[in-house]
């Protein structure tokens, strides 16, 4: 039972980490290599604001705001001229962003570990079927459910979501209809980055806040995005939970094989369903 709870918490945390990447790739077709660096920035901002204000919540809000604004600025100033160019321009840009953000973080906070404590409200444990589970892990599961539901409603049920999807499938047509494609794209990139910042702030009490967290995370995120079907939010949820469970079970029965199991899942998927386990073909008229 505890393994299921741990697997769920790992999966939901992974979903929070991968949601921004999935959103940006699915709606804009941009592979954002800087996703991990923005996640790291979110963790550092949450650490700093939390330390200054004594409020974890303020830290989370600041992380979302700053990474969201940064995302909007990056899209408007540097990504926008590159949409019509080959993909490698975007790869180089986002890779460069990793280097810039890492150096900015190193300059401001140094290269040491920073510590973010679990807020008192969730700083306890509950006994569930013979296991002691940190309340914060349950909070992460709950937050993952809330974020995934909101993201689904936003993309599938809201008018703005419809515009985002329309701009994603035929930007020129949306532009002819007089709608601001540039602003829509900027909003999507900004929301994607804000989700990364949120993930960084939520992950900060669980992991060491350090420069290396950017690279540690990005690999897991790409695994989720590939398994879930590139840009598929529902697929990303399912893939996150699948990877979370594989890892949780792996740690219990064969810890030294955890990475091998995770990558085997990825390789198997690429061999059998390269479009992702949860890929849906686009409907045509």
């Amino acid at each position, binding site marked *: 039972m505890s393994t299921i709870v741990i697997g769920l918490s790992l999966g939901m945390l992974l979903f929070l980490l991968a949601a921004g990447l999935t959103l940006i790739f699915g709606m804009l077709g941009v592979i954002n290599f800087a996703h991990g660096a923005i996640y790291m920035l979110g963790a550092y901002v949450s650490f700093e604001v939390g330390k200054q204000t004594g409020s974890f919540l303020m830290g989370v809000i600041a992380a979302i705001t700053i990474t969201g604004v940064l995302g909007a600025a990056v899209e408007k100033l540097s990504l926008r001229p590159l949409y019509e160019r080959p993909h490698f321009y975007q790869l180089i840009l986002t890779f460069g962003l990793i280097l810039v953000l890492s150096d900015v973080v190193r300059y401001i906070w140094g290269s040491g*570990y920073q*510590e973010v404590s679990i807020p008192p409200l969730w700083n306890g444990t509950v006994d569930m079927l013979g296991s002691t589970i940190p309340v914060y892990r349950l909070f992460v599961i709950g937050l993952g459910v809330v974020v995934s539901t909101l993201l689904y409603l936003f993309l599938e049920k809201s008018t703005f979501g419809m515009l985002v999807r329309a701009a994603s499938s035929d930007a020129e047509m949306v532009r002819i209809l007089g709608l601001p494609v540039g602003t829509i794209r900027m909003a999507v990139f900004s929301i994607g980055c804000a989700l990364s910042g949120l993930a960084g702030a939520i992950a900060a009490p669980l992991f060491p806040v350090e420069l*290396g967290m950017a690279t540690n995370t990005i690999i897991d995120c790409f695994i989720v995005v590939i398994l879930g079907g590139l840009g598929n939010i529902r697929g990303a949820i399912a893939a996150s939970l699948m990877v979370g469970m594989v890892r949780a079970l792996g740690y219990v029965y064969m810890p030294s094989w955890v990475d091998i199991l995770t990558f085997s899942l990825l390789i198997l998927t690429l061999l059998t369903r390269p479009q992702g386990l949860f890929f849906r073909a686009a409907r045509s008229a």
Partner: protein
Amino acid sequence: MFTNGKIFKTSLAVAAATMVFASSAQAQAKPESFKIGGVISLSGPYGLLGEDMRRGVQIAIEERQGKVLGVPIEVVWEDDETKPQPAVQKATKLISEGSHMIFGALSSASTLAVMNITKQRKIPHLVTISADDKITVPGGSRYTFRTSNTLDMENRMALSYMQDKKLKKIYAVTADYQATRDGWEWFKKNATSSGAQIAGEDYTPLGNRDFSSVVDKIAKSDADGVFLALTGSDVVTFLKQAGQVNLSKSKVIFGPVVADETMAAGVGPSALGVNSGMRYHYTINNAANRKFVEAYQKKFNVFPPMAAGEAYDGMSWWLDTVEKTGVWDKEKWVDAFANSVRENSVEGKKTMRACDRQALQVGYWGEVVQGTPPAPALTMKITQVFPENKLFTDCKQ
């Protein structure tokens, strides 16, 4: 006409003159700078420690006004990303660019890989942190020296601690890495032969991102001690997540090298009470250390962490030895260092053992405690000093 005897004598004289000329040219061939090639980890699981090492070396160089053998010291740093393959590539590049010595690497796997290159190219190689016992073995590389701890001496301290605390059941978490696996096998053999039982053992990947399942297994076990053979961000992640279920309230957490101020700062209050081998500490009370701590604090405004102290210690010992030889001859530097004694090391007396190129030294064991200013909020307290003869066995060929 020359007779055969005359030809022989003339040839001998020419050969002798050539050798004398060559050796004096070698001694006089003074380069513009003394080049140090530093292969350290600035990214990856040990990325943070690399920066500390760089700072320690910087102090060692500045202390001698940036010069050795009358020329400026030039250091080129390369990041091995905590991986052996980049370490080999970077070391090869540094040697081809004319490095007079190689410093590093950080992880033992990288250091062992770099050793092969320095041995082949006959370049002096200084190791100040990698602890794998295989780095300094009798009949190993003539060119590689370690001035810091071996994993074996740290495991001996950990074993002694386990026995003193009368721990009966041990659960081990080990980074899936040859040096830590070997260390745990040694510990397990000796712990069980002294009456302890093994409650469980898990090998987790280096750079592991989540330990919650492992922590849950340990919490459910009847172990009274948790032996951690982890370091870097792995140990910080483990201790943070163990703290979230209060693991240290029911089990004693200890390991060969699992805590220092840098790691404790990342973990937070959950690090309190963790016991660990210590390679260097700023509180070691001797004149050399006081001088180093003062210089380090003046430059970086913090107390020197473990990796910085070890790097400083090894590099200043090496540079002093090179200076004493007075010649530009790598073989002479190596011979001099192999037989040197550092009376005024920041960790006390160190003696380089010529048979395996390992520095004999005392060992420090300590615990994470609450610090009072100017010490960091969480600091290490030295609780035991192990004499050299308790930590090293004879050097058998």
